[in-house]
């Protein structure tokens, strides 16, 4: 960070409402099929992890691994999400889309179904529809009729078709298009709209807070009509009228390279970066990671005035390269490049000063 940093070791103090965690980390030693964990999704007491070498389920203290031999579309599972209605799991893989339902895999590929492309980066299931982000555009499966609808440069404002992430809600569906900004689908009007970087510069931010921070988007999150966007060049927040952008130089983001953004309520938001897991509560920031130099457990807190403190902690996520998170009550699960981490919330009333 370019800002002056005041490191203050303050033991168990600090952080105010900023959450603190005791981290338990899982690797191949504990049963994960691979340490490169691309995605995690929580379904009650079940934890699903998409890894570079299979899908893993953690339940009752044990890991169970699924591979293509079990029917999984491909060993590299890039994203997982639980259908909240049916509790089926959808897995986006490098070889198609798989649904796991009570022991049975159903796999959809570009050859056996209407899926646009087998390289599937993201999936979001809501109601009767499954929205899919692929390397060749967006796909939508109507589960009731089996109809596949494709959305690409021919029927949307999508000028790049490398869709990277999708989030479906009752009123809007958002796609992060890698190199193409953000696409918004209005459920009611069935119309598409795009959001792009207004300055069009790939290296510069000429018009900060006047639009999306960058075209290379990696993730979208939409809650309470607040849209968050993760890019490789910072984060953006859009409330329907105004944009606000966040960079490492003027926020608590540890890096502008973001793999995922996930908001709890539009304000409290988590950022998965290449330099740690970051949290923003609307005013203050926290970063959780092994220190970049010593690899010792580290928690950094940045207050509203830009003062940064280091909180003494005993544990940290498995690695600073974070792919994504999901929540389990007050706990958090974190997919990293060197394992899956369970952040167990520590309840401690502490002052802000």
């Amino acid at each position: 960070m370019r800002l002056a940093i005041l490191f203050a070791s303050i033991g168990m103090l600090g952080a105010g409402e900023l959450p603190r965690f005791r981290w338990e980390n899982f690797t191949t030693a504990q049963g994960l099929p691979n340490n490169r964990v691309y995605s995690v999704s929580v379904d009650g007491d079940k934890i699903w992890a998409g890894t570079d070498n299979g899908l893993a389920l953690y339940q009752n203290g044990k890991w169970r691994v699924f591979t293509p031999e079990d029917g999984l579309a491909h060993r590299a599972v890039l994203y997982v999400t639980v259908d909240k209605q049916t509790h089926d799991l959808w897995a986006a893989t490098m070889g198609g889309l798989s649904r796991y339902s009570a022991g049975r895999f159903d796999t959809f590929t570009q050859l056996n179904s209407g899926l646009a492309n087998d390289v599937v980066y993201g999936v979001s299931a809501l109601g009767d529809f499954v929205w899919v982000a692929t390397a060749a555009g967006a796909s939508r499966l109507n589960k009731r009729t089996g109809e596949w609808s494709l959305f690409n440069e021919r029927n949307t404002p999508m000028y790049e078709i490398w869709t990277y992430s999708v989030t479906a809600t009752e009123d809007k569906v958002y796609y992060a298009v890698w190199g193409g900004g953000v696409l918004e689908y209005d459920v009611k009007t069935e119309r598409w709209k795009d959001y792009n970087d207004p300055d069009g510069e790939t290296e510069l931010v000429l018009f900060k807070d006047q639009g999306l921070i960058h075209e290379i988007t990696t993730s979208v999150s939409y809650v309470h009509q607040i849209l968050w966007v993760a890019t490789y060049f910072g984060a953006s927040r859009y409330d329907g009228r105004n944009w606000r952008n966040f960079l490492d130089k003027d926020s608590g983001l540890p890096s502008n390279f973001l793999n995922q953004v996930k908001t709890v309520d539009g304000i409290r938001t988590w950022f998965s970066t290449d330099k740690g897991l970051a949290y923003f509560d609307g005013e203050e920031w926290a970063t959780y990671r092994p220190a970049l130099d010593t690899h010792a457990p580290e928690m950094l807190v940045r207050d509203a005035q830009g003062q940064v403190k280091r909180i003494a902690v005993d544990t940290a996520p498995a690695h600073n390269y974070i792919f994504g998170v999901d929540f389990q009550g007050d706990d958090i699960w974190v997919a990293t490049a060197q394992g899956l981490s369970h952040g167990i919330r520590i309840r401690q009333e502490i002052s802000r000063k």
Partner: protein
Amino acid sequence: MKRGGILVGLLAALLLGQPAPDGGRYPSPVDLALSPDGARLYVVCEGTDEVAVVDLATSSVIRRVGVGHVPRGIAVSADGKWIYVTNAWADTVTEIDARSLAATRTLSTGFEPSGLTVDARGQVLYVANRISNDVSVIDLRTGSEIKRLAAGRGASYVAASGSRIYVTHIYPNLGKFRTESESEITEIDADRQVVDARPRLHNVAGTFHVALSRDGRLGIAAQLRPKNLIPLAHVAHGWAFGDSLAVFGADVGGVVQLPLDELERYFSLPFGVAIAPDKSKAYLTASGSGEVAILDLKRLVAASRAPERDALVNDLSVSGRYVLARVPVGRNPRSIVLSNDGARLYVANRLDDTISVMDTAANRIVATIGLGGLPIVTPQRRGERLFYSSNFSFQGQFGCANCHLDSTFDGLQWDLEPDGFGVDIVDNRSIEDVANTAPFKWNGGNPDLFTECGPRTERFFFRSQGFRDADLADLITYVASIPLRPNRYRAATGELTPAQERGKAIFERERRKDGSSIPEENRCSFCHSGKYHTNQKLADVGTGKPTDRSPLIDTPHLTNVALSAPYLHDGSAKTLEEIWTVFNPKDTHGVSNDLAKDELNDLIEYLKTL
């Protein structure tokens, strides 16, 4: 039930002043339910679109309640106040007030709702949808479907025990080409309204009714194990189907498959299941053999727990361990239901339009209740009885309806003829509305239905003397009359969606996207022309296999093609997409390689409307 019995039943109905059904149709009872007090029997009559209400004290029909088209399943709420009936061809459930016997609501479901159950609290309805392969979860307070759960293929029958709901399927799940079929029992946790287990039924194709013991510890499902990977010509040396049951639950531990057939005495096409309240016996109908089997449950459980239990299902001597008796009933017996005390078993004889009443202490039929209907048996009805009977095949092993379940298909590929293992594999096509689509067989070898259903069936399938000429004429009359189910993908107005319109244009196009002309014989609409989308000629579209005797394939009709996966003559294309993405590399089966993926999707959306 003899024909005279029907006449007696009808006469009795007239004398007693019972309400008569639609005079031009047969009731064709398929499902049954008892009122909680045991006083009334509700009978689902798929042929007359009604529920016949039978007063068991007088053994007479006291009311006929009109429901939707082709009703199939029935459930009664635990308090007995409400009756729910699935209308398979209307995609609805009719709710009936059991006191007034008036239809009160019509609830929407998925495609072809079949079996159903009400949860223990009477608040949620679970409906198995045969065509959409899922389960509708309906909130009975609002009448709205709140979610759809993925089931197996052909979800059809449902049983509940406490908060567990079990769904069985008449078609196997789509699997790899030329591998053993597999079905499942879809288990739903009604507390969470999710599917939480799918025990596999290996080597099983169709699964029919399922029943649970009152304590919920023992489940039984009727099932068919096909022998479709070996030539059917070997029927004389083995068997074409294993008529069997799946036994599951805590009493057994896991799922165990056990045979119902006996050596040289088959129990063809098992369908209905009931378990005695005291768990002493189970009852199953054989819809092809016209019998009810009575099973000793203690012995059945013992066989299910035997160390060699996984090896028993192909041993036809095993059924002797637990089958106590086989009692003849009417034609094509379907569902059965036991009285609350287990003393009476009621059997729906679909093709006799009667209910057999069995005294379960004596194991004999003590009464037959007529449901009315046409006073004469038409050639079409006689043909339907032949179609569903297994009496014409070697050792009574199977009938037409074994492969054409409920006059449709079975989702299997068969090695039919005596030309060697794995030669001329053929996918089982739908036979709805086929009368005008000659020739028949995938190689077009049979010019008419007489040849298709007569000598061919006798020689290659049944290994028997076959039908008399008059019987064959009746059978063909029936086959030619099998109606087409409503198409679920085409709007009632006939209007196409934008995607379907685009697909139609592709289907009918004469030029490639680069503007070059597509040869006439290589256009979709050339071979797939006319009302049934077939020019009724043979064509080599490059999909023949080295194991086929000829690359020339009969151009199939495309009516309701969406329902009959897998595709191509041998079923090697698992989905419509694979016809072109996998099996058309040289544009010999229509020109498809210039299409973008979304255009191929449009084409498929159009095909689904045919």
